[in-house]
């Protein structure tokens, strides 16, 4: 199975959230605020699941002042290196999904095609 490397930014607010990508699982409150790099395995023809968890509903996990969020427990995908392609934060915004995870148990997916159809997918996302 190919290996991927992902850079995730953990925003702290009453601790940090947990995050899960395929078999990789990061428990809540185990990381300091900032960008952290992880490895995980994936397969062609399968989806990669991204999920944030461990965020409460309370005001402690999201601070709102004068109608604006000033602090938020969140996780943002900064960079994802798959085999042959590096996807930056802006690639996610433009071609994949909103890389900002701000709700508990929020899931998003990258549907990877099989190897045969991978180049067409690459053309679509690597622009």
């Amino acid at each position, binding site marked *: 199975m190919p290996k991927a490397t992902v850079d995730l930014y953990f925003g702290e607010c009453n601790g940090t959230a947990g995050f899960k990508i395929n078999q990789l699982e990061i428990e809540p409150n185990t990381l300091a605020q900032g960008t952290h790099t992880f490895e995980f395995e994936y397969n062609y023809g399968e989806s990669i699941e991204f999920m944030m968890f461990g965020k409460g509903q309370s005001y402690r996990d999201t601070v709102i002042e004068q109608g604006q969020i000033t602090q938020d427990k969140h996780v943002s995908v900064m960079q994802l290196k798959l085999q042959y*392609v590096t996807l930056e934060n802006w690639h996610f915004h433009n071609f994949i999904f909103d890389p900002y995870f701000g709700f508990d148990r929020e899931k998003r997916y990258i549907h990877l095609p099989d190897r045969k159809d*991978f180049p067409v997918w*690459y*053309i*679509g996302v690597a*622009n």
Partner: protein
Amino acid sequence: MVDVLFVSVPVTFTNTAPAAPAILISMLQQHGHTGKFYDFNRHVKDDENFKRYAIAEATPEDVLEFDSTIKMHVRKMLSFNPKFIGLSIFSYQCQRMTKLLCVYIRTMSPNTKIILGGPGLNTGGLQGENLGETWQAQELCDHWVVSEGEWPIIDIVRGDHNNKKEWTQIENLDEFPIPDYSSYDWSLYDKQIPITGSRGCVRRCTFCDIHVHWKKFVFRSGKSIANEMMLQSEKHNLYHFVFTDSLINGSMKAYKEMCAVLAEYNHTATTKITWEGQFIFRPQNQMSEETWKLSADAGLTHVTIGIENLSESVRDHMQKKFSNEDIIYGVHCMQKFGITGTFLMIVGYITDTESTIQENKMMYQRLSKYAPDTITGVAIGTTLAILPGTPLDKMSEELGIIKGKRENDWIGSSTLNQRLQWRRELINYCSRLGYVVPENEEQQTLIHNLEDVQYA
């Protein structure tokens, strides 16, 4: 089964067969290996999807058609059953397509090893960042070669190559075998054969990165070049040659020797050999009328000359080392002996001002009697680019130049807007005087992008 299949990557605008694959194939053969060439670039030269993807950096209009065209060509490449596919990257405009082609080869034939090489593997000129290491980390390639590939290709096939940015320049070009074009499909090109007589340059022009990359000017003996031309012409029944050199008369000794052999050959040949290449104007005491005549007898038909600027003060700053009188003498000799020429020009050099632009106009006026029959083209470039590692790049701070994101986008004594204006002015002026001012698709795209920089 072939050891290495060399593939040219789209998009490069040329009608001439590329020289590098034939040189590397002959090198492989000399060492007991095999190589062939597949010109992917040339096969898709009219396909708008490729231009859109590679040059405009946009998604092709018809992605599925684009996908099926690439797959068809990769299948053709794989039908050679190559152990290695060597992607020849001619310029930065091939970079995007190279990555995509790697993805196709990797997904269609994971066991085929990929080698990357060519000047386009560097971004921002020959001294710019080399992308090989980054692309290898992304698993897009197995090997990458900086600059000359003759020895690295042998090492790669033997499993003894280290990918590295450092390289040592070959000093004896005569030790290599004659290029093997037997796997080329000549129907794809103009009826001419490329040939390399030298590498590097004898000048140290401030804007150029050739002399920074190639530390020494190395050249083959005139006899060896002439022999190659005589052999190749008979083998392929093609009698016109295009030199890939930065200049064909860098060594006057080798140049005269080559001309003497070819002039003698042409004297009795049924079909005469003709040739063209990049050239420098030399004063009369270095290149006499006799030598010009010998050149014509040897088959010289066209020269492409880096005049760069028609203001002597600007050219002096550039270190071009020839005067306006040398230009007039050169053009006079060209006309006398039936040799045509294209001028390569830079507008908006760091010392260009309104006054030097006027000097250019006066000189264009003076030379206009030679246009368009002797001076068949004036190629006015896309304004001065300050390339990494060049003397201008090194002097830029001292000269008070503020560099932008692109090489052409800098502010000094002039702005990009002013330079683009001068360019338009000179193109119009030259056209009115009867010069032909060619502008290719590549230039149009760059100018379009630069104009966007201005108005963004």
